């Protein structure tokens, strides 16, 4: 098995659904066979310039734009590298493997994700690790790392898993959250954690904190050591600096059951 690189021959004029491009399936075939696969009324070879690489099990998508949706949708194994931007729904319902986006990502990055690792070098849109309309829960496992900022309502109805943001979140991060962790190195935008039931928000500051979060004081918790070490082990050089020994804990959202928490490190 070798790797494959698919370079878009031209900038797409409309939205392009690339959810069918799975590393495990494509890298198991020859370059020629992949070029003959039917796609959007033509073949993959019509749309992409296809070359083989030496990275076994790795699929590289190059020259992609924010119009390229569904990259890494339901990804279960292998590595998918995006040398460009990714549109909406990247890594949606991902179960395993690794998705590296070298550019920026659109809305719903890792929505409903259950396992694996997503890294985004740039920023990402809204609803990172969230859910789509009509779905019951958002992210349920795995790790997302975003090198820039993320949009509004990250972790909407998130149950498990970890989102690490080197920049800042948009408004209402952790809305309706039921578990998991969002660690924003740049802090939280306005009104974080609305109707949050459980889960953990970690950051240096939070803009316009909701009145329904209660100040529990400054605490030294063993859990801080565990999550610092876990993130360091999973993200390596991308990991944020370990948490300080003490953080200020706010419990909320008390408009819901109030078993979530915001831990402010600043």
């Amino acid at each position, binding site marked *: 098995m070798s790797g494959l690189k698919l370079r878009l021959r031209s900038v797409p004029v409309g939205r392009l659904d690339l959810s069918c491009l799975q590393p495990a399936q494509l890298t198991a075939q020859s370059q020629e066979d992949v070029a003959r696969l039917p796609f959007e009324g033509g073949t993959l070879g019509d749309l992409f310039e296809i070359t083989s690489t030496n990275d076994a099990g790795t699929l590289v998508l190059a020259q992609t734009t924010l119009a390229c949706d569904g990259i890494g949708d339901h990804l279960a194994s292998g590595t998918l590298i995006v040398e460009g931007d990714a549109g909406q729904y990247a890594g949606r319902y991902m179960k395993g493997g690794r998705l590296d986006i070298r550019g920026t990502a659109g809305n719903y990055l890792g929505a409903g994700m259950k396992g694996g690792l997503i890294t985004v070098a740039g920023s990402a849109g809204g609803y990172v690790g969230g859910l789509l309309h009509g779905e019951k829960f958002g992210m349920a496992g795995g790790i997302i790392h975003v090198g820039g900022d993320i949009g509004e309502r990250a972790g909407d109805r998130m149950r498990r898993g970890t989102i690490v943001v080197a920049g800042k979140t948009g408004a209402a991060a952790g809305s309706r959250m039921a578990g998991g962790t969002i660690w924003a190195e740049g802090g939280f935008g306005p009104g974080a954690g609305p109707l949050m039931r459980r889960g953990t928000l970690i950051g240096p500051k939070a803009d316009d904190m909701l009145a329904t979060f209660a100040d529990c004081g400054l605490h030294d918790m063993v*859990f801080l050591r565990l999550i610092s070490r876990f993130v360091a082990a999973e993200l390596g050089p991308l990991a944020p600096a370990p948490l300080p020994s003490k953080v200020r804990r706010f419990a909320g959202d008390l408009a819901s059951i109030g078993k979530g928490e915001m831990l402010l490190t600043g």
Partner: protein
Amino acid sequence: MKVNGVAIDDTFAEAFGMSGTALIITADSAKWAMIAATTMTGFGTSVIGCGAECGIDYEIPASETPDGRPGVRVLIFGFSPDAILPQLKNRVGQCVLTSPGSACYNGLDSSQRLALSAGPRFFGDGWQMSKRLGKRRFWRVPVMDGEFTIEDNVGVTTDAVGGGNLLMLGRDRAGLLETAEAAVAAIARVPDVITPFPGGIVRSGSKVGSKYKGALASTNNAFCPTLRGTTETELDPDTIAVLEIVIDGLTSQAVSNAMRVGLKAVTDIGAAKGVTRVSAGNYGGKLGQFHYHLKDYVA
């Protein structure tokens, strides 16, 4: 055969299959990790009378524990995983949860698991919080000095062995105890084993059964020096004391390693401290699945 003036009996230690688990207990300091570990392994000498056989395996430097604080690894042995579970619940709940600054984690990689947090987490009265990090799940239980952190489950093995043993016979009780202490210290450096009796040493070896109804075991009169001449004896004329080291291990190999270093520690000291003979306890080979022959450990 004699080594350094000590006679080595041509016999074997007979041991039994058991189940075992391991915990890592951490605290703010090595002192408090050891206090929690010592307390939770107390009253854990014999599975018959104590429900479990427990002991401290080794201290763990802060750099190697799950939370980066000083830790201690403890081992717990029982007849079966089901028999260990209530012991975990009671010992962790009463002795680790209560100890200032403590946390408790899995210390054994095994596919078979026991619900470590099943009892202690409910002390949180609904305020306990779960946090899953990768494949591991932790519980945070609010307590008066902050939070008690405990891992959700712990590995358990059914390949453990209990009852490896060495019997040391001598003509000087103080010298015999010193020699036994040296053997226990040597065995303590072997990973995956414990010597569950006080200080690792037993002075009341037992035989199966009793003249009294309801007593499962009674004094091993054949090894009691003060009964020599009144009952069948296994002792030499100059023997005035016998001490035993019982060894439990997570694997048979670990018990075997401990038998080897224990016997070597005794023979290295030799007859100088009054030890005259080393033997081992068995039931004729009919009860235990694991036999450790002393002659195999003599260099």
